[in-house]
């Protein structure tokens, strides 16, 4: 059968004074029911733009987005309004994504109101309280304002709001990055519980590789708008194939003092995504780059079963 979400060769370019900014460049993936796809990359790699384009918050420049067997690429506003019931988003910053002048109850009820999901005033409170229970938010906060609550509780409001319409697919854009570790663990567990209970599919965007490994069924690594590696579950961590992913993994400081691992330090920083030159975008920082890498953009290829890599030299580097 078809996948819940299918994204084919999706591109999103932004026009800037200096040329086209290639925020998302040729991204392809599928997502099934009850599955989590983790998208990792550093700032500016296009992971947030990807999430927003999939939700129709940006128009796609090229490519197709299929949801539940239907092509939803650049459909009308009215159609997207309908789709919102199925597709929701949780934002990164629980401080900025809530209206400071709306109470917790009003914030959670807003989507219900917009879609006319309750008839009488009483129904509203019942449903809001149900949602608050679901995300572990004490009912006594129903009339509180966001500034009265801490970051973890605010993020719970964001989650309750996203769940209000009983969506099937949620884009989670760095949902735990702004939280302290002990609270981060609470929210991650909550999201996993909710996924099981409500059969949710997540597109989980983060820069934190430990979080992504913990929560994802599939993982996509992005660099400057392009996918460099896509693999099933923990496979990525067992056999890491792309040189960028290798460097990214080795760069994470581990909370352990027993590892004498060889750290790969990358040269330089991200190049500009505006009018990128032909060739592999990672080549200027890559330790294995050959002249060919600067001429032709590598295509994503299935190097191992269900493990896709975009690198000209992947076989030589990994001795495959």
């Amino acid at each position, binding site marked *: 059968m078809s996948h819940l979400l299918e994204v084919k060769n999706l591109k999103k370019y932004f026009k800037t004074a200096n040329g086209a900014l290639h925020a998302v460049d040729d991204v392809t993936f599928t997502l099934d029911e009850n599955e989590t796809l983790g998208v990792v990359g*550093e*700032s500016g790699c296009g992971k947030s733009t990807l999430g927003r384009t999939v939700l129709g918050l940006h128009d796609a420049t090229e490519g197709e987005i299929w949801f539940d067997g239907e092509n939803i690429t650049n459909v009308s506003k009215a159609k997207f309004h309908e789709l919102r019931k199925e597709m929701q988003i949780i934002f990164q910053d629980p401080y900025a994504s809530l209206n400071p002048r709306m109470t917790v109850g009003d914030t959670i009820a807003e989507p219900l109101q917009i879609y006319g999901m309750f008839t009488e005033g009483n129904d509203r409170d019942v449903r809001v309280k149900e949602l608050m229970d679901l995300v572990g938010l004490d009912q006594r906060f129903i009339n509180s304002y966001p500034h009265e609550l*801490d*970051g*973890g509780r605010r993020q719970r409001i964001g989650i309750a709001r996203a769940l209000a319409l009983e969506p099937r697919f949620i884009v989670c854009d760095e949902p735990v990055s702004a939280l*302290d*570790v*002990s*609270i*981060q*663990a*609470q929210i*991650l*567990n909550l999201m*996993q519980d909710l996924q099981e209970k409500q059969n949710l599919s997540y597109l989980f965007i983060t*820069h934190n*590789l*430990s*979080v992504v*490994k*913990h929560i994802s069924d599939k993982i996509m690594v992005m660099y400057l708008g392009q996918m460099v590696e896509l693999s099933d579950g*923990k496979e990525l*961590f067992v056999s890491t194939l792309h040189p960028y992913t290798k*460097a*990214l*993994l*080795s*760069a*994470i*400081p*581990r*909370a*352990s*003092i027993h590892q004498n691992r060889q*750290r790969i*330090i*990358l040269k330089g*920083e*991200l190049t500009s995504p505006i009018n990128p030159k032909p060739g592999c975008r990672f080549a200027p920082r890559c330790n294995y780059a050959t002249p060919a890498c600067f001429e032709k953009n590598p295509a994503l290829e299935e190097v191992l079963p269900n493990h896709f890599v975009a690198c000209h030299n992947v076989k030589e580097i990994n001795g495959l």
Partner: protein
Amino acid sequence: MSLLDIKNLTIHYETDAGCVEAVNDVNLKLEKGETLGLVGETGAGKTTIALGIMRLVPDPPGVIKNGEIFFEGKDLRTLREKDMRKIRGGRISMIFQDPMTSLNPVKTVEEQITEVIRLHQKLSKAEAERKACEMLELVGINAERITDYPHQFSGGMKQRVVIAIALACNPELLIADEPTTALDVTIQAQVIEMMIKLKNDLQTSMILITHDLGVVAEMCDKVGIMYAGEIVEYGTLEDIFDGEQHHPYTVGLFGAIPNLDVETDRLTPIEGLMPDPMNLPEGCNFCPRCKYADEHCKTANPVSHEVGEGHFIKCHRFAKEG
């Protein structure tokens, strides 16, 4: 004599809404050449300790209620402001978390590095400029870029500039407040590598404030775990990461981070929230979240017990028998 010796430091913020007990009775020692990691979550009081050492606690509302801060044998609290200004930026300097906001956007990098050099060292303008170029090269930025403005640099490079300014006068003590938190991992790895090298080359002692236990494991010799304004556990890197005995909060902190090397289905978060620093519990600050808490913990604030040489845990469970 230790380079830095903090005794019974207590810092409160006295606001109209009430008294925020940010730092309570903290004792710390730092030897020359050592790096101490202060770990804790938002609001644990890490930054307030740093500001206390620098005598930069905003007053009002901040008040140092009690305690002594000995730096090279002198109590910084008793110094005249004029003498303190000679130490600040010279003998002790500080790196702030956000490199985007801690540089002056309307001054070139050259002006900003030479400013600190000329304030603390009797050098001519030309000599100071030469020194500034050296510092920039030291942190891995081409000296040609010295006349650039901060907005012309990327985040990682701005943080390098901030580090160059902090190290320009060859300080004895460097306080780094979350120096890599605002950076991407591959850039963070570059900056950490550079800081370790500089620390070893220049023999600078360092206090590293962070919430990232991974960064601590890479850089520190000693570790202090902070919770609600107190140091709940203190010891060497080995004591904290490998020791048998730990404060329940330290255990919780390690359990809450997803570990790349261990498979778990669910994380084990610390239930509940940090107490409101305006309204701390009567007994142990951690007791409302602690699974071992008993009646005694609710009423009596524990003292630090030495469980091994130089390894302190502030918990009743480690009180000596009798």
